[in-house]
């Protein structure tokens, strides 16, 4: 089975800190995604990547950046954490569309609290 591993289950940071969220997948998937999930707002796409060193903005990229230096690893960076970035962050991966029709495999999530 595909495994998508997020480095931390819970994280508490201070306002203004630089925060790194790491995600690793083991199925050689081309596509990787970062979502945040908030009550009443559902899953919102922050960034996605369809190849190494490639990235595309999602619906809410402001305040975030990403890095994909290796195929299996996709990092989300909060340059200067703010309280409104307190959320559940979910990483996902998929193979190229057409192979599995975009079926996403998710990690267990990182609950980030910014104080």
């Amino acid at each position, binding site marked *: 089975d595909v495994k998508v591993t997020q480095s931390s289950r819970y994280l508490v940071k201070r306002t203004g800190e630089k925060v790194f969220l790491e995600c690793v997948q083991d199925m050689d998937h081309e596509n990787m995604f970062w979502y945040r999930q908030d009550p009443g707002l*559902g*899953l919102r796409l922050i960034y996605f990547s369809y190849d190494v060193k490639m990235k595309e903005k999602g619906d809410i990229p402001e305040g975030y950046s990403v890095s994909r230096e290796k195929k299996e690893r996709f990092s989300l960076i909060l340059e200067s954490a703010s309280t409104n970035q307190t959320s559940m962050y979910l990483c996902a991966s998929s193979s190229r*569309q057409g192979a599995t*029709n*975009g079926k996403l495999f998710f990690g267990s*999530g990182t609950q980030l609290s910014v104080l």
Partner: protein
Amino acid sequence: SQKIEQNSEALNIQEGKTATLTCNYTNYSPAYLQWYRQDPGRGPVFLLLIRENEKEKRKERLKVTFDTTLKQSLFHITASQPADSATYLCALIEGYQKVTFGTGTKLQVIP
């Protein structure tokens, strides 16, 4: 971009009944639509996919329909069980790879 609407109110049903969840989208019809299940504190898990040229898809107690005229998908769980209690999300692909989700409907199956 697409707007995907799911009933934000929780759905409570009795065990053994059929649960029906609705997903409506606003713009162009996608090539296919996906349904996921999410348990509290966990990431979503893929359940079913239906293509635009398929009217209906079944998997065990699950059934999905796709009506491109109404811009709607219905997700049915027959003979529902308390273990089916979860939040169910519909999703579709925009462009090449971007997957957009609805806000989900929380289902509670009462014993």
